[in-house]
C-alpha cells in the first residue's frame, strides 16, 4: 500500500492546508483509501465549498415546494396527488474530453437523480454551449454531444422535449453540457436519501463496478491544461439499457414498502452515496467491499470506493425484505448484493477481505468539509452606448433581419432535436422549437411545461442583471405556453472561484437569481454548481442555466407561437425602449460588444406575465411568443416561419428608431395574436391593468412587410434560418 503524504494529497486535488486539516481531524495520517474518500468528499463538486455560503441566499420556499435543494432533486406540487421531481446538472468536463460518453452519462446521471426519488422520468431537456463555430473543435464536439444525449435518452424512452444551444468563443476550451429531467410521482410516495434505523441492510444494485470514472468528481473540480486528453480514462461509460432496467426495477421495488432510503451512485460513486445516506440519518455505515459486484479483477478498496461506474444504486432496506427485493432485481437481470449495514457508530467503516481498511467519522466528510468565503469583486454596470444616427444610415432592415436569423445563436436547431426522440411516451404536446416543451401528465387534463435558458452575454456584462434576466426569461417561457410558472432548477456554470472576478460573477449572478425568483415566487428547488470551467487561464462567461417548469391545469388551453389566422391583430405587450447594448444586433450588425444588458424591471415582468395569463383564461388570445434574443422582428419571423404566414407591420409611433424598436432586447415583452372581435376587449383589459402595449401589425399574406423598408417572403427567410446549422454540420 502507498504511504500517504502531502505530495500525494496534492495530487488528489487537496490543498496543503486541507491535508493538514485531515491529519488533525483524524489525529493520524490517513491511508490511501481514506485519502481518496476525503479528496472525493472535499472537492468542489461534492462539497460546494466555495458556493455553499452564497447558495443560502437563494429563494427556495413557496407553498408549491415539497422538497427544496439538498436532496437528489427538488419536488413541487402540481395539484391533486401529483408532484414533479426535477433537477438540472452539469457534465461539462467529461463532455469536453469525450463528448459522446460525457453527454450520455450526464443524461443518465440526472435521470437517476429523479427516479431515485420514486418518480418516473417524463421529459428530458438540455442546455449545451459550444465554442465559436469557427473553432476547429466545435463541430465534432457538437456532433458527439448531440449523439450522446440522443443515444442515452432515446434508448431509455424518455422524450427530450426542449433545450438550448449557444455558441461563444469563451467556450472554446470548456463546453457546457447541462442535462435536466422531470419525473412524475405521487406526492405521498416520494423516496428520500436519509437513512433511518440501525442494523438495516445496505444493498447495492445495478451494474457492476469497474475502473471507469475514478476521480471523475475531482476532474470536475480542476481546470484544464494541454494534457487534458490524458484524462479520457476518467470519463464514465454509459449503458442506457441497464439504466432502463434499473429504472423499471427500482420503480417496481418502490411500489412496495421495503425501502427506507435510496440514493444513486453519481459523482464520487459509492463514497458519496453511502456517506450522504448515513450523514442525513445521523448514522454510521459499515460496508464489506469484498461483496461489491466488480466487473474487473483485483480491484482495490480505493478503486471500488472511487469508481464512477454508471447505473448503480445504493438502498437501505427494511430488515427481512432482502429476498423480496432480490427477486425483482433478478427478474430484471441486475446485480443485487447486500454489502453492509447501518450502524450507530457515526463512522464509515470499510472492510476488505476480513480486514478493516478505512474508518472515518462521517461528520469529518460531510459537515466538517471545508467552506470558504472566497474573495470576490463586484462588476460595475457598464456605460450605455449612444449610437449616433450615422451608425444606422447605411443599414437596411431586410439585410439586418436576414443576418440576424442566421446568427448561430438564433438559427434553427432542428438538426439537433431531430436526433432526439421527442414523442415517445405519447404525451408530448409541444415539441422542441416552441416557447417551451410541454408534456401531458399521463391520463389527466394537466400538462407540465419546461424550458432551459441562459444568457451568458448579459451575465458577463453585468452579472446581477444577467442573473435576474435569465430567471425572467424562464418565467416568460412558461407564461407564453399558458402555464403558471411553478419553480426552477439552476445549473451554475462558472470559471475559477479562486479568481476574484469569477467568484464575483458567481456571487452576483446568484444574488440576481435569488431576487428575481423571490419576487416572482418562482423558487429554486434543486441544482448544481460547476466551477473551474477554465482552460489555460481562460474562463467561460458566467453561465447560469435556469430550468423552469410550469403547470397547465387544462392542457387543451396550451398556447403555441404559430400565427393562426389572416386578419388577426398582433400586439407587443411590455414597453419597447429599443435597448441595443449586448443585443444580437449590436454584436452582429454594429460589432459593438460593450454596454449594459437590458434592464430588468421585476414589477413589469410580473404584471405583464399575469396579464397574459388573464387574457388567455378569458380566451382572448390566439398565439403568444416571448420576445428575447434578436428582438421583435426576430420573434415575428420565427412565428411566421413556424406557421407559413406573413405579417404586415404598422408604421411606428414614438421616438425610437426602427432598428432599435425591431431589434432591441428590452425585457418583459410578449407578442400576442388577437382576433378582430376581441380587440376592444383586450385593449380595455390591458388599459385597466395599466399594461403597456403597442399595436404591432396584422397577420397577412406570406411576407413580412414594413412600409417601404421591408418586404421579405417567409419562404425566403425560412431558408436561411433553417439551413445554417445543417450546412455547418456537413461542411
Amino acid at each position: 500500500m502507498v504511504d500517504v503524504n502531502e505530495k500525494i494529497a496534492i495530487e488528489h486535488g487537496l490543498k496543503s492546508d486541507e491535508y493538514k486539516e485531515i491529519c488533525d481531524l483524524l489525529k493520524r495520517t490517513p491511508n490511501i483509501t481514506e485519502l481518496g474518500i476525503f479528496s472525493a468528499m472535499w472537492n468542489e463538486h461534492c462539497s460546494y465549498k466555495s458556493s455553499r455560503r452564497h447558495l443560502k441566499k437563494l429563494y427556495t420556499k413557496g407553498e408549491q415546494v415539497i422538497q427544496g435543494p439538498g436532496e437528489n432533486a427538488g419536488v413541487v406540487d402540481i395539484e391533486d396527488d401529483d408532484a414533479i421531481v426535477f433537477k438540472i446538472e452539469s457534465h461539462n468536463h467529461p463532455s469536453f474530453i469525450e463528448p459522446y460518453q460525457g453527454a450520455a452519462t450526464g443524461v443518465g446521471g440526472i435521470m437517476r437523480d429523479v427516479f431515485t426519488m420514486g418518480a418516473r422520468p417524463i421529459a428530458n431537456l438540455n442546455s449545451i454551449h459550444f465554442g465559436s463555430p469557427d473553432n476547429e473543435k466545435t463541430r465534432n464536439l457538437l456532433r458527439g454531444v448531440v449523439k450522446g444525449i440522443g443515444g442515452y435518452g432515446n434508448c431509455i424512452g424518455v422524450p427530450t422535449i426542449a433545450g438550448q444551444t449557444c455558441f461563444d468563443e469563451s467556450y472554446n476550451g470548456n463546453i457546457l453540457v447541462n442535462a435536466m429531467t422531470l419525473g412524475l410521482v405521487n406526492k405521498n410516495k416520494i423516496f428520500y436519501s436519509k437513512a433511518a434505523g440501525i442494523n438495516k441492510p445496505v444493498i447495492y444494485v445495478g451494474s457492476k463496478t469497474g475502473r471507469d470514472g475514478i476521480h471523475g468528481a475531482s476532474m470536475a473540480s480542476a481546470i484544464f491544461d494541454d494534457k487534458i486528453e490524458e484524462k479520457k480514462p476518467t470519463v464514465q461509460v454509459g449503458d442506457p439499457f441497464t439504466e432502463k432496467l434499473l429504472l423499471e426495477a427500482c420503480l417496481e421495488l418502490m411500489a412496495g414498502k421495503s425501502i427506507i432510503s435510496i440514493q444513486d451512485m453519481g459523482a464520487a460513486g459509492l463514497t458519496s452515496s453511502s456517506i450522504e445516506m448515513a450523514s442525513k440519518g445521523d448514522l454510521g455505515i459499515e460496508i464489506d467491499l469484498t461483496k461489491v459486484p466488480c466487473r474487473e479483477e483485483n480491484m482495490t478498496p480505493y478503486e471500488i470506493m472511487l469508481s464512477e461506474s454508471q447505473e448503480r444504486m445504493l438502498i437501505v432496506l427494511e430488515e427481512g425484505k432482502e429476498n423480496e427485493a432480490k427477486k425483482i432485481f433478478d427478474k430484471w437481470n441486475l446485480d443485487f448484493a447486500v454489502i453492509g449495514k447501518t450502524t450507530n457508530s457515526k463512522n464509515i467503516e470499510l472492510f476488505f477481505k476480513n480486514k478493516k481498511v478505512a474508518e472515518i467519522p462521517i461528520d469529518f466528510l460531510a459537515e466538517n468539509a471545508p467552506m470558504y468565503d472566497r474573495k470576490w469583486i463586484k462588476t460595475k454596470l457598464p456605460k450605455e452606448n449612444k449610437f449616433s444616427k450615422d451608425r444606422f444610415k447605411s443599414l437596411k432592415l431586410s439585410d439586418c433581419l436576414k443576418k440576424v436569423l442566421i446568427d448561430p445563436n438564433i438559427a434553427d436547431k432542428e438538426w439537433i432535436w431531430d436526433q432526439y426522440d421527442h414523442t415517445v411516451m405519447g404525451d408530448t404536446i409541444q415539441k422542441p422549437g416552441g416557447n417551451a416543451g410541454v408534456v401531458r401528465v399521463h391520463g389527466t387534463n394537466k400538462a407540465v411545461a419546461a424550458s432551459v435558458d441562459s444568457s451568458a452575454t448579459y451575465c458577463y456584462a453585468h452579472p446581477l442583471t444577467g442573473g435576474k434576466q435569465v430567471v425572467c426569461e424562464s418565467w416568460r417561457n412558461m407564461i407564453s405556453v399558458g402555464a403558471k410558472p411553478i419553480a426552477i432548477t439552476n445549473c451554475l456554470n462558472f470559471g475559477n472561484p479562486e479568481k476574484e472576478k469569477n467568484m464575483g460573477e458567481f456571487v452576483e449572478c446568484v444574488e440576481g437569481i435569488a431576487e428575481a425568483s423571490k419576487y416572482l415566487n418562482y423558487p429554486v428547488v434543486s441544482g448544481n454548481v460547476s466551477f473551474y470551467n477554465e482552460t489555460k487561464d481562460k474562463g467561460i462567461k458566467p453561465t447560469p442555466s435556469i430550468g423552469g417548469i410550469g403547470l397547465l391545469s387544462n392542457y387543451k388551453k396550451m398556447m403555441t407561437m404559430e400565427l393562426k389566422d389572416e386578419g388577426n391583430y398582433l400586439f407587443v405587450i411590455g414597453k419597447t425602449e429599443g435597448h441595443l447594448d449586448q443585443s444580437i444586433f449590436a454584436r452582429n450588425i454594429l460589432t459593438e460588444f460593450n454596454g449594459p444588458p437590458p434592464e430588468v424591471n421585476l414589477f413589469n415582468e410580473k404584471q405583464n406575465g399575469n396579464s397574459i395569463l388573464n387574457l388567455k383564461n378569458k380566451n382572448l388570445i390566439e398565439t403568444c411568443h416571448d420576445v428575447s434574443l434578436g428582438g421583435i422582428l426576430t420573434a415575428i419571423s420565427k412565428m411566421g416561419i413556424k406557421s407559413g404566414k406573413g405579417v404586415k407591420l404598422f408604421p411606428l409611433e414614438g421616438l425610437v428608431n426602427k432598428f432599435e424598436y425591431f431589434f432591441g432586447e428590452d425585457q418583459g415583452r410578449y407578442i400576442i395574436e388577437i382576433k378582430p372581435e376581441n380587440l376592444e376587449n383586450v385593449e380595455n383589459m390591458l388599459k385597466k391593468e395599466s399594461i403597456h402595449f403597442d399595436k404591432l401589425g396584422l397577420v397577412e399574406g406570406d411576407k413580412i412587410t414594413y412600409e417601404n423598408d421591408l418586404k421579405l417572403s417567409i419562404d425566403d427567410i425560412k431558408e436561411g434560418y433553417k439551413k445554417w446549422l445543417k450546412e455547418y454540420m456537413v461542411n
Partner: protein
Amino acid sequence: MKSSVIIFPGSNCDRDMDVALKKFGFENQMVWHNDAEIPKSDLIVLPGGFSYGDYLRCGSIAGKSRIIKSVIDFANSGGLVLGICNGFQILTETGLLPGILQQNKYLNFICKNVFVKIKNKENKYFKKIKKEVLELHIAHNEGNYFCSEDELKSIEDNDQIAVTYCDHKGNDDEKNNPNGALKNIAGIFNKDKNILGMMPHPERMIDPFLSGEDGSLFFENLIESL
C-alpha cells in the same frame, strides 16, 4: 378483440402501444419476454424500443428470446403479428419478414413526422382506411430497409410492400426518403399479409394534441377488420 403486447427488456413503446390499443377498443394484455406462452390473442404486437439494448444488432437477441417461439407459431398459424420500429427489426431477425434494417443513410437518429403511401389495402391492416397517404411519425436510428434483388423481386411479385415514404401528395421518390430505405420501403408484409412490420409509429399519432391523428385511422381499421 384481444391483443397482446410483448415487453422485452429495453422495450420503451410498450405503454404507448397499450394506451393506443385500449383507446380503440382492444382488450390488451402485456406479456413478459421470459414467459413461455402468450395468452389467447387476436393480435400480437412487438413494440418499439431497444430490446436487450440492441447492442449487438437491432432485434437480434429478441429474435432468439424465449417468448419469440410462441410468436412465430402464432404467426405461422395465420395470427396477426404487428411489429413497430424495433418490433419490425425483430420480425426481420426471426425471418418472419424478409430483408434487414440498416443504420440510417446519414447515420443520425431521426425523429420527425413523415408521410407514407399505402401500397396494398387487401389486408386487415389497411383495408378500410380511406386515405391513400398517412402522416405518421418515425423515431429510429436503424430504419434503412434493405434486401437482396431476389428477395425484392419476390416481395414485389407478392405485393408485400405495405407502406413507402412519400410526400403529402404520395410521391414516393428518393427526395422523400428519410433514411435511405430501398424503394422507400417503410413497412412490409409477409406473403400471407398477416404479419406487418413498419418503422413509423401509429401509436404516437392518436389524438389532435400529439403529432397528428392519422394513427387513429390505423387502429380504427384494425379493430374493425378483425
